[in-house]
Every structure is written in structure tokens, then in C-alpha cells.
């Protein structure tokens, strides 16, 4: 492969990777927030059951 071909490949990898990550960051930020609430609610429920 020529130097130019390698540079094109790395440009695609960089732009593609960063774009995918930007989308993932938004989805995980929102979805993760609800998962944290669920996790704490479940743990609270378990703690309540073991207390009673």
C-alpha cells in the first residue's frame, strides 16, 4: 500500500471511530442513568427484604 493509501485508511478509521463513539456516548449517558436508578432501587428493595 502507498503512503497516501495508509493515510486515507487512518483518516477513515479516525473519523468513523470518533463519530461512532459520539453516538454511543449519548445513548449510554441516557440509558446508563436509568440503569443506575434501577440498580439502586433493586439494592434498596433487597436491603428492605433482608431487614424485614
Amino acid at each position: 500500500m502507498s503512503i497516501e493509501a495508509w493515510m486515507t485508511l487512518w483518516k477513515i478509521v479516525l473519523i468513523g471511530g470518533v463519530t461512532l463513539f459520539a453516538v454511543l456516548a449519548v445513548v449510554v449517558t441516557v440509558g446508563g442513568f436509568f440503569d443506575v436508578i434501577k440498580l439502586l432501587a433493586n439494592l434498596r428493595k433487597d436491603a428492605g427484604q433482608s431487614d424485614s
Partner: protein
Amino acid sequence: MDPSEILKQTNFTTLDWVIVIIYPLISVGIGLYVRKYVRNMKDFVVAGRGMGLWLGIATITGTELGLITVMYSAQKGFTGGFAAFHIALAAGIVTFIVGITGFLVYRLRKLEVMTIPEFYEKRFDRKTRILGGIMMALGGILNMGLFLKVGSMFLVGITGLSSTGWALPAVMVFLIVLVLIYTCLGGMISVVIADYVQFVVLSLGLLLTCYLAVNHLGWDNIFTTVKQEMGRGGVDPTVAESGFGWEYMIWMGFLGLVNCGIWPTSVARALAMKSPKVVKRQFMFASISYMIRFLIPYFWGICAFVFIMHNTELKELFFPGGYPAPKGAGGFDNLYSMPVFLGRILPAGLIGVITAGMVAAFMSTHDSYLLCWSSVLTQDVVAPIRESFGKTTSAKARVTLSRVFIIVIGVYVLYWGLIYNGRDDIWDYMAVTGAVYFSGAFALLLCGLYWKRASSTGAFLALLTGLGAILGLSPVQELLNVKWPSANVGLCTIGATVLAMIVGSLLFPDRKNDLPAGETETKGAA
């Protein structure tokens, strides 16, 4: 030229210090708040196995995208240019394949073990679990020996503190104390929540910094400078002048598998997920993070290189004999290149947010690693040894013991960071030290999960063979007066461990041979 005077030229202000100090205190607050939810070892180690998919992706990213990763990756980008991108690409592709196939992680999660050595006992026997736990802790703790120092170097570099005075050790002590407090308090529950917060802050910081770096240097200028200064070696990883080559690339492909499917901190996240099916989805999505955690820091390292090559003062500091640096030319530690670059291009306020994100990344990695190695020592070494003598270890005692190990390992990391004075390439150092554990673990997981005839003697031999990886360390090679590329040593060790596993199993089959294999097949079938 005084390096400290040059390092002081940063945009870091008092406002940024306030942001950086408040952020870790919030993490400590989280640790205190969630402490009340920790009732047993399952809560402490795998967060009650209640993590949803998105939180699972956030926490696996939060753990694996640590400050140490950012630092050693930036160093690789600084020295290797765009050719280093092949490591990121390999990591992303391999993790995606693991996600699709569920290779290793699916069966492990299905067995409902809490740690990898626990699987060793379930599949082989107790002595394999104890030896596996010792090897894992040995490789892992050695591996994290430089974390604190390298992380602190980032803070010193970006804030403009003196690199030679009191600042570095003071920052190290401050950070390790904070990490120890909240890891001891909350276990995995505080870790996953801190990881989530870190994911949010760091994602924004990573993306914004990339934009500002390109905006400052110019997209075309970055590529043109690398091409002019590094030549073909700066973009083509297959040629020797890049410092990589085919063996290195194959080694990196294998490390991609290790990072997601064998490395215990990563596997711990898989074992904490709700179900085996969710694990597969977790890895498919997380493959983006596994690529990005290398890709963006490489890019920052490349940008730092371009920035320095266009700055006479910094060029003289990092490359006193010109570029490419002649042998023995010395120069300032290139680990400082990326933080110095960021300290000069990011505006006040934002630099505080980015640094806080990095501190979060630093803490996130430390908490996970401390938790992982301490629970392995408790669950897989101390408790099984006590059981062998007919003594039980209560759940409360296990949590207490894990907390004691966390503090002991923290003190070791501080000690090692203060005394270590080497100038090795950090990524290669970590790959070799990690191989002490993962080369043996690979053979045990591969054969234990997928081969009925794998025996405990074969497993024991494979674990011991994994010690051969230390031949890749430069001080050991100097002692033996040999010079072998670490990639070749790593690949040979992997081959040797698998061979030891196969030969040992064929020559010394387990007497109860069909029971564990059949059991594993039933329990772990995909």
C-alpha cells in the same frame, strides 16, 4: 534551558484547580452514600449482579479508558505516529468478534462465578485456583505498579507544577488516598456509579479536545507533518522503521482478545451483568470504546508531536539532538508531551473539566484494579487455603480482608511509583507484566471451557509456563545478556502455555476426568 520553566507555560488557572479538587470529592461522597447497600461479598465484588446493558457499557469503558491508558497511548502515538492506529483497530475488531460469538465471556458468565480463579476450581481443582489467583495477583499488581506515577505525571504536565520537586509525590499521595477511601467504602457498587459519572465527563472531554486539537493545528497540517518527519514508518505499521512490524501486529491482535476476554477487570464487568446474553451485547457495543480508548489518545499524542515539531523551544527540550533523535541523545521524558500540549491549547475552565475527567479516569481505573486484585487475593487465595485447613471465612471477614488488601496494594503502588525511575515504553512494559498472568489464563480458559480432556495437571503446568513472559522485560534480558523483542517473547509464551496444557492433559488426565468437563459443557454451553 530549565524544563520546569517551560512546563509552567500552561493555561491552567485557579478556577481549574477548584474544578479538579471538587470532582474527586464528589466521588468520595458517592462512595459514602452507597456504602449502606453493601451487605455481602456478592454486592461488594459484582454489585449484586444487577447491572443493565448501558450501565455495563459505561462501567467497562470507565474502567478500561483510564488515565494510564490515555498516557501510554499518547506516548505510542507520539513515537509511532498514525502507524500506532493498528493497535486501536485490532482492539475494536477483536472485541466486536468476542461480542458476536460470546467467545470465553459467555460461558464464564453462565457458570455464575465471581472471579476467573473461581472458575479454575470449578473446572479443575483447588490448587489450580490458588496458583491461578497468585499468578493473577502477581501479574496484575506488577502491571499497575506504574499507574500512580504516570497518572501523576499527567497532572504535573498539564497544571505546570514542577516535574522535579515536591509536586509529583504530593499529587500521588493525594490521589491514592482518595481512591483508597471510596473503594474501601463502597466496593463494586460505588465503582460502577463512579465509572458512569466518569464515562459522561470523559466522553465529552475526549470529543471536545479532539475538536480543539484539530482546530488549533489544522487537519491537513497534522497528516503532512507526520509524513514529512516520520516518513513511511509514521503511517505503515508493517514496515520495520515504524517500530512495529508483523509480529508486533499479531501480538497486538492477541492483546485485543486479552483486554476484553481475559483481563480480569474487564471480565469482572461481564460477570456482573444481568445475563449471559446481555454480556454479548455489552461487548458488541463496548467494541467502540475499546477502539476509542486507544485511538483518541494516539491522536492526541500525534497532535502533541506536531505541536512540538512546530515549537522551537519544545523541540529543543524533547529532541535536543534533532529529530529523529540520535541514539543516546536523551531529551525530556516524552510522557509529558501530551499533557504539555493540552495545557497550551485548551482554554481556562475547559482545561479544568478535562483534567477532572482525567482524574476521574485515573480513579476509576485504580478503584477497579484495587477491587479486582484484592478480591482475587481474598476469594481465590486466602479463603481456599483456609478451607483446605477446615476453616471457613465469613462474608464479613472477606469484605474486611479485601479492604485490607486494597490498602496494602495502594501502599505498594505508591512505593513503586516513588522509587521507579525507568524510561521504558509504558505500553510494552504493561503488556509483558500482564502476560505473566494472561498467557497461562488464556490456555486455561480456552481449554477449560472448550476441551473436555483438559486436566488439572495440564492447567497447573500452563500457569507455571506463563512465568516465561518475564523474559520479555528489559532488566531480565540485560541480566541474561540477550535481546529479544517483547512481542516475540509474548507470542512464544502463549504458544508454550497452550502446549503445556495439551501435553499435561494428555499425559496426566484427571481421574474424575469426565465429570468436570461434562459439567462445564452442560453449564457453559453457548
